[in-house]
C-alpha cells in the first residue's frame, strides 16, 4: 500500500558505486527519503537515466528503472509518459548527458511540457570519462581536454530551461537536504514538466565547484533562497537585499538607507523575473529555489484530450475500414 511506504522500500539491493564523498549520495538519500511521503505506489514510479555518473541512479531505486542511451533519457521518458500518463516518471541526467549530447531532447521535452520530473545533476565536469570540461564548465577551466583553459562559453541550465519555456524551473544544492527535499516535493506536485538543476559536487574531478554555497561560513553571503511573495534578502545577518535599478538587479544593504519595501519581491509566475534571477552572476548571490512556474497543461493531457474529442465526434475508429476506404484501387 502506497500510504505505508518508508524510505527502505525505495532502497534497492544494489551496491552504490559512486566515488566516496560524491554529491550523488546526498541526492539519492533525499530522493529515497521524500518519495515515500508522496504516497505514490512503487510500481507507479519510474526512473530513467542516460549515461554518466548520475545515470547510475535507477540501479539504486527500488522502482521501475531504465538505464538508457547517452543523452536520450528525456526522449525515452517522453514515450513512456505520453502513453502511461498515470506513471510518475523521473529523469536523472547530468550536465554532459543532458546538455551536451542530449541537449536537443532535453529542450524539446521541456518545451512540450511533458510531465517528467527532470533532475539535472550539474557538477560542471565530465566525471565518468575522468575529468574533461563540460558545457557548464566556466571559461578558463583547466581540465584534461582544456590544458590551456576552456574558451567555450558555458550553458546556464536554468536559463536554458526558461528559454525552452519549461513550466517549472528550480535549483537545489546536493547537501542542502531540507531545501532539496522541498524542491523534489514541489516538482512532484507540479502538473507538467519539472526541471530541477542540482548543484552536485564531483569531489574527484571538480571538487569545491560550489563551495561558496555549501561552506557554512560563506553560504549565507552567497546563497539567495527564493521564496514566492517574499523580498530577496540574504547575508549572514540578513542585512543584504536585491532591488531593481531599471532592469538591472543590484545589491543594497538594509539599514543603509534601504528598507525591505524597496526590495524586489519574488514572483514565481513572472518569466521576466525568472530570467533576471537566472542570470545573476557575481557579485550577485546565487539563487536557489523555484525560479518559475506556469500552469499550462502538460502535453500528454492535451494529446489525450484531443484523442477523446476525436472519438466523441467520430466514434471509435476501425482500422480495417480506414485501410480499405477512400483512396485505394486495384491494379489489374
Amino acid at each position: 500500500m502506497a500510504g505505508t511506504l518508508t524510505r527502505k522500500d525505495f532502497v534497492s539491493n544494489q551496491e552504490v558505486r559512486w566515488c566516496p564523498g560524491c554529491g550523488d549520495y546526498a541526492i539519492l538519500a533525499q530522493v529515497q527519503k521524500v518519495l515515500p511521503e508522496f504516497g505514490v505506489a512503487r510500481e507507479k514510479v519510474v526512473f530513467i537515466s542516460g549515461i554518466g555518473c548520475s545515470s547510475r541512479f535507477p540501479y539504486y531505486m527500488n522502482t521501475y528503472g531504465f538505464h538508457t542511451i547517452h543523452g536520450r533519457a528525456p526522449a525515452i521518458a517522453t514515450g513512456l509518459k505520453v502513453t502511461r500518463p498515470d506513471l510518475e516518471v523521473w529523469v536523472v541526467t547530468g550536465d554532459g548527458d543532458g546538455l551536451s549530447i542530449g541537449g536537443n531532447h532535453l529542450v524539446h521535452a521541456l518545451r512540450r511540457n511533458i510531465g517528467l520530473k527532470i533532475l539535472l545533476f550539474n557538477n560542471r565536469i565530465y566525471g565518468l570519462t575522468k575529468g574533461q570540461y563540460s558545457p557548464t564548465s566556466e571559461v578558463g577551466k583547466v581540465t584534461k581536454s582544456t590544458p590551456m583553459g576552456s574558451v567555450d562559453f558555458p550553458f546556464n541550465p536554468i536559463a536554458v530551461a526558461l528559454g525552452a519555456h519549461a513550466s517549472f524551473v528550480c535549483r537545489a544544492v546536493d547537501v542542502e537536504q531540507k531545501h532539496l527535499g522541498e524542491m523534489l516535493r514541489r516538482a512532484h506536485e507540479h502538473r507538467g514538466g519539472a526541471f530541477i538543476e542540482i548543484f552536485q559536487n564531483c569531489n574527484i574531478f571538480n571538487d569545491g565547484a560550489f563551495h561558496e554555497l555549501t561552506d557554512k561560513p560563506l553560504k549565507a553571503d552567497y546563497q539567495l533562497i527564493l521564496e514566492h511573495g517574499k523580498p530577496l534578502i540574504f547575508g549572514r545577518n540578513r542585512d543584504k537585499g536585491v532591488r531593481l535599478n531599471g532592469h538591472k538587479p543590484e545589491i543594497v544593504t538594509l539599514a543603509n538607507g534601504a528598507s525591505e519595501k524597496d526590495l524586489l519581491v519574488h514572483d514565481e509566475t513572472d518569466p521576466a523575473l525568472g530570467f533576471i534571477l537566472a542570470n545573476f552572476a557575481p557579485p550577485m548571490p546565487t539563487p536557489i529555489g523555484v525560479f518559475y512556474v506556469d500552469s499550462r497543461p502538460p502535453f500528454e493531457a492535451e494529446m489525450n484530450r484531443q484523442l477523446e474529442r476525436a472519438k466523441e465526434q467520430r466514434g471509435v475508429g476501425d482500422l480495417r475500414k480506414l485501410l480499405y476506404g477512400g483512396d485505394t484501387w486495384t491494379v489489374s
Partner: protein
Amino acid sequence: MAAPAYLPQGAQPADGLAPRLLDGNKAAAYGVLLCRPDLIAAYPITPQTPLLEQLYKFKADGRLTAETVEVEGENSALSAALGVTVAGGRAFTATSSMGLTFMYDAYLFASGTRVPVVMVIAMREQTAPTTVSCGQQDLMMVKEGGWVQLVCESCQEILDSILVAYRLAEDPQVQLPVNVCYEGYYLSHLSEPVTVPAQEAVDRFLLPVRDKRRPVLGTEHPMTFGTYVVGELYAEYRYKHCQAMERAGGMLDAIDGEFRAALGRPYGGAVEAYRAEDAEFLMVTMGSAAGTLKVVVDELRKEGIAAGLARVRMFRPLPARELLGLMRGKRAVGVVDRSVSFGWNRGHLFIDVKAVAQDLEPRIPVVSFIGGLAGTDLRRDLLAGAARTTWERGRGRAGAEVIWLGLE
C-alpha cells in the same frame, strides 16, 4: 640499429631515434601529430578518451598546431571534421561504440561524398547490454558504410596506420574516408615499445595537405558537395565508389614501398601471413588476438601440426584475392571473431572468409569461432582449442560450423 626495448624513466629521446613506451592511444596521438592535421574535433568516450587528452596535451605544449574542439556529441565531431576536409584541410576524429553509432548519418555522408577524413575506432562492444568492454562489434556495425578500414595488432601498427590512412584517403585515386581500428584496452591501454618516426621522414611519405591536389571548396573552381541525385546518376556514384574501394585495396603494396623508402621499414600489405605457406590448415583473425594465435601456431608446429595464420589488416575493402591465395591448398580454415552477426549466428569475418572460400576447388571446411566478447580474454588455451578443432575438421572430423569459445 639496436634500440632499447623501453627507455629509463625521464629519458627523452629525440623523435625517431629510439622506441619509446607508448600505449595504443598515445601511439595514435603521435601518428596524428606527425600528420599535421588542421582540426581535431571529438567527444570523449571510453576507451578512446586518453587519445584525445594526449592530443590536447600536444596542443598545450605547442607541438600541435591543429584547432581542437570538444564538441557536444560524436555526430558533431565527424560533421566538423567533414567541414574542414571539404574546405581542403586535414581533419582527425576518434570514437568508440555508441559514439560511432551516434555519428552514423555523418559516417555514411562522409563516404558517400568521398570526404577523405581519418577516424580512429578504439573498438568496444555495442550497447545493450550496457558495457564499456572490448569487442569488435562496433566496427562490424559500420563495415558496410563505404569507408576503408584498417585493423591493427600492435601499438606500432596503430601509429603507422594513421600515416597510411591519410596517404590512402587523400590519394586522388581513392578520395575515401579511412578508419584505423584497434581494440579497446587490449591495445588502447597496452604499452609497447613504439618507434616514433621523425617529422621529415613522415613529410616525405605524406605531403603536407596544402601541397596536395584534390577537389576542395574554393572560389577558383566553385564546387558543391552532397548534391541530390536520382536514378542513373546515383548508380554511377555507387559504381565509382566501389571502383575507388577496389583501387584502395590494390594500392597498399605501392604505399608499402613508399613507406619503406621514407621511413626505412615496411608497413606491410592487406593480409599478414604467418607460417601460412606450408600450413595444412589456416587460422584467420583480425586485431590483437593474432599475437596469441601466432604463439599457438608455433606451439602446434613444435608438435608437428602444420598450423598457419592469416591476419586481415585491411578489412574493407576485403582482400579477397590474398585470402583466397592463402587458403588454396589448405585442408580447413578456422576464423576467430570478436563479434557476432545476429541472424547468422556466425562471426562477421567468418562470413566474409566463407564467401571467399566458395571459390576453392575442392571445398574445404570453414569454422566460425566466436570469443573475446565484452573484454573476456581470448586465452591461449581457447585459441589452441580452436586451432586443434580446425585441424581435426581438415582431417575429416565432423562438427558444428560455429563454436562459441568458452561457452560450448
